[in-house]
């Protein structure tokens, strides 16, 4: 295969180049570039330049193109593999047409904006975008005609007509004039119609001229007959190729005879038309202005000289037409080469050249995807067909991912890349800025739907950390529960308990009250939940349940030792109630807890100097507790003894 070797694109950075280095840093969507020196010290200008790639992604005018083609793309992916190809073809053709109509709609919108804008520079920019879209549509349409459509020549004619629409504008102008037949563009229009094979319209135009020249009526009548009798070949129709061939030869002979016997010699215009329909190449080439492109020339030439052309012969005619038409210019332009490659049915070359010539991946990615679905890449002997498709889709989707809202479209493209789509999505989606909780939830949902557990965990951890840094404990806790991050949940629970100790109230009650099974994520979180439950029970005056829970928090070692004193202090009001709440056994256990706690405290802090004020308070607390426990024990023993008796 021909090697396409192009010099790399150079982007100029406003920085000094002599003897200086350029430093850089990759970001998710762009690259930062700055002047520096790596080997020696020296001064440099301290500017940092943000350099971006996919310029088109940021164009507000192309949003529609990206959005709508995304829908078509997703629809295409759902066409079932197992359908017989016969049934799928019309679907593919309609999808191809949908893509093209999106391009056209986008183009027309851009065109309007370009016309209405006052800023000349912006207008040029839009104009450029329009012409790129035009080229894309032209190429796409040709590929569609060549690969998906049945009757080749008729579709090629449609293709030329669609992209050479200025004939219609001119015709409208002529027809609106007072005397159309005398309009200076009259004959241009007639000849253009003939060149495009629009013979019916040409005849209607000629009628106007005929009525103006009654003397030449016979001649016009003859031309009208010739034009009306021209046979068109439709492979899908009832006519066989041989039948058509006989008919066409007969007609062609007739036109030729008219030319030979100078039937139109008195009217140069009709003579020209006659020469055109007989397929005279020199005459065609004399009308380069009206043809305007070599591919129009090609189609016209095929129409009048080789109407039964087979797809396999196309490339020969295409090549020769291009050479004949472009004689003045030495080098064909990118578009010429792309179209030529298409006429050669070298789909791969088309994609290749387009990738080089066009400045976005949109076109090549979508076209390749469509052709791949049509199984056309394989039939053209490209064994890496699906790789090429995936490669281009990945590039396109990665470009979308740099945009602050279009990235959501990219997800579906990655989903449809079987080899690397998931890895790419994982790498890209992690870098989506989580500006708000809402956005974080959106990203999270996408990851959850795809079981990307590592990304889910990371997003939740980031959000939890951020909430904690901003002292939003409730949010931090719910994010870390979502991340199943036990260590962090422990840390936040600790903060909740600390807050409680200093303020005496809990924040985020809703969350803590509704922890449910999530409570089991970490011991400390369990404790937090249970401890809050105790407060609730106490608040509802369900004292014996509260007492039981409180005790179990210590005996089951759910509560951290550092919190025992608080728990014991919480027991005080229960001990001081009129009725006995803690049973004798329970009181014993409480006493045991208190002793365990005080002995460990004394142990860790061997009697230093004078007790501080804090220690004094602690000591008082312990004594109060001991007193309350002893009294409760006494009451409990009496009560229990009484009931038993």
């Amino acid at each position, binding site marked *: 295969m021909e090697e396409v070797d192009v010099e790399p694109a150079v982007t100029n950075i*406003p920085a000094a180049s002599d003897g200086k280095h350029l430093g850089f840093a990759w970001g998710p969507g762009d690259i930062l570039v700055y002047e*520096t020196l790596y080997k020696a010290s020296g001064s*440099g200008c301290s500017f940092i330049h*943000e350099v971006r*790639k996919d310029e088109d992604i940021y164009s507000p005018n192309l949003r529609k193109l990206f959005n709508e083609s995304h829908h078509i793309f997703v629809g295409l992916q759902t066409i079932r593999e197992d359908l017989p190809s016969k049934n799928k073809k019309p679907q593919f053709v309609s999808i191809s047409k949908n893509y093209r109509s999106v391009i056209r709609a986008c183009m027309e919108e851009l065109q309007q904006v370009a016309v209405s804008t006052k800023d000349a520079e912006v207008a040029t920019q839009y104009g450029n975008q329009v012409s790129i879209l035009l080229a894309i549509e032209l190429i796409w349409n040709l590929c569609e005609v060549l690969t998906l459509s049945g009757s080749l020549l008729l579709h090629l004619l449609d293709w030329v007509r669609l992209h050479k629409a200025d004939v219609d504008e001119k015709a409208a102008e002529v027809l609106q004039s007072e005397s159309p037949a005398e309009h200076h563009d009259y004959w241009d229009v007639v000849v253009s119609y003939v060149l495009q094979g629009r013979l019916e319209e040409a005849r209607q135009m000629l009628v106007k001229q005929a009525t103006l020249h009654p003397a030449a009526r016979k001649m016009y009548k003859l031309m009208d007959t010739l034009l009306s009798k021209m046979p068109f070949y439709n492979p899908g129709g009832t006519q066989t190729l041989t039948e058509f061939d006989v008919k066409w030869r007969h007609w062609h002979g007739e036109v030729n005879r008219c030319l030979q016997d100078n039937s139109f010699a008195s009217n140069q215009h009709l003579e020209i038309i006659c020469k055109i329909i007989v397929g005279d190449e020199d005459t065609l080439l004399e009308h380069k202005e009206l043809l305007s*492109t070599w591919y129009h020339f090609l189609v016209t030439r095929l129409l009048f000289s080789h109407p039964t052309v087979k797809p396999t012969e196309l490339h020969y005619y295409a090549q020769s037409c291009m050479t004949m038409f472009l004689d003045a210019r030495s080098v064909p332009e990118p578009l*010429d080469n792309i179209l030529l490659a298409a006429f050669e049915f070298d789909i791969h070359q088309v994609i290749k050249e387009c990738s080089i010539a066009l400045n976005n991946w949109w076109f090549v990615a979508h076209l390749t995807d469509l052709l791949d679905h049509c199984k056309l890449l394989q039939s053209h002997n490209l064994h890496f067909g699906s790789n090429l498709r995936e490669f281009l889709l990945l590039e396109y989707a990665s470009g979308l991912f740099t945009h602050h809202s279009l990235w959501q479209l990219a997800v579906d493209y990655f989903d449809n890349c079987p080899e690397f789509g998931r890895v790419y999505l994982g790498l890209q989606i992690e870098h989506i800025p989580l500006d708000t909780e809402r956005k974080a939830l959106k990203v999270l949902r996408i990851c959850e739907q795809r079981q990307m557990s590592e990304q889910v965990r990371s997003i939740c951890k980031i959000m939890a950390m951020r909430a904690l840094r901003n002292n939003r404990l409730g949010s931090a806790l719910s994010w870390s529960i979502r991340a199943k991050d036990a260590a962090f949940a422990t840390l936040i629970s600790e903060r909740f308990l600390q807050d409680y100790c200093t303020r005496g109230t809990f924040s985020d009650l809703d969350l803590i009250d509704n922890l449910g099974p999530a409570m089991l994520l970490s011991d400390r979180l369990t404790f937090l939940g249970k401890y809050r439950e105790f407060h609730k029970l106490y608040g509802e005056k369900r004292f014996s349940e509260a007492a039981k829970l409180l005790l179990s928090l210590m005996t089951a070692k759910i509560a951290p030792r550092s919190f025992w004193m608080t728990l014991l202090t919480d027991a005080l009001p229960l001990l001081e109630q009129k009725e006995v709440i803690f049973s004798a056994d329970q009181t014993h256990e409480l006493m045991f807890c208190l002793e365990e706690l005080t002995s460990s405290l004394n142990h860790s802090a061997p009697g230093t100097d004078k007790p501080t004020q804090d220690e004094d308070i602690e000591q008082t607390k312990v004594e109060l507790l001991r007193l309350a426990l002893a009294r409760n024990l006494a009451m409990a023993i009496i009560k229990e003894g009484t009931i038993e008796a």
Partner: protein
Amino acid sequence: MFVARSIAADHKDLIHDVSYDFHGRRMATCSSDQSVKVWDKSENGEWHCTASWKTHSGSVWRVTWAHPEFGQVLASCSFDRTAAVWEEIVGESNDKQRGLSHWIKRTTLVDSRTSVTDVKFAPKHMGLMLTTCSADGVVRIYEAPDVMNLSQWSLQHEISCKLSCSCISWNPSSSRAHQPMFAVGSDDSNVTYSGKVQIYEYNENTRKYAKAETLMTVTDAVHDIAFAPNLGRSFHVLAIATKDVRIFKLVPMRKESASTGPTKLEVQIVAQFDNHNSQVWRVSWNITSTLLASSGDDGCVRLWKANYMDNWKCTGILKGDGSPLTGSSGQPTAMSTVVGSSVQTSQNALNGMSLGFRACGVGCAVVFVYFFKTFFLLIFFSF
């Protein structure tokens, strides 16, 4: 490609490093002026400097962000023989209103006796770990056991590489099949010591890092080194900046079940480019490792890309156009934006390449000057 905007960084001396945070919404810059600056991107894409402070008593070589799971944390390293860890404090509300943030030093790592040449956080799945390398040839791995208390860092590993170290890179793979691995490069210019790149792998049994491989073919000074994101592959890809750009593939060999030593690696060279003509100073991969950027003595940043046949080629060049934006530092402190001057120039250069779209149906006769602008080039070559 095009220059979207230019930012006056307003450092009083040469900028040595610029680093994006994980989400691309913040950046940090460091300079010979001994300071670090933090920049935040606003909704409309403008960059605002929200903090600037003196970090070291010497040139600051590198600045890097920890993963946001660990909060807003920066590490810097300097000629002053130290590395430092910085954490942003959520400050008073009026600070926020004024668009300022407050960073405090959590720790200074003073173990090195020479200039600390590189500092990198380990991949996040390993916890909060920081690695430094220094001119005395030692790689140090620190760990913050409590992510809520960044003032405590313990020196976990000290690995002597024998040669003056210039750069380190962690293998980002979080696959369970891969042990933690890093590569270290040496800028020792004596070519008689060959193997300027060493690869170390963690051994679970000894709980130590052991040398898995030395790239013997790399004999010249190495200035930068970068592992590519793994993409779920079994092998690793490593880019090296030395007298040229090199891309290596490291394929772990099947381990004998009894063996407890480090994984043997089969080293294959994938590509080698001398387009920078002389020394290459930096190499770095984009997020999906589809593009490698390198910076060299030719004053250019070059972008390298593999096509789907895995052929590597230069697809873009970023080049200083010789027009210093500002002569001196000490320009206006507010950041100024200079928009896209390069777009114009690249268009002029490409004028000749008009696509010549002559059949404009909508009635516009537009010349095609738009082509070849970006680097959507060369995915296709030579097969």
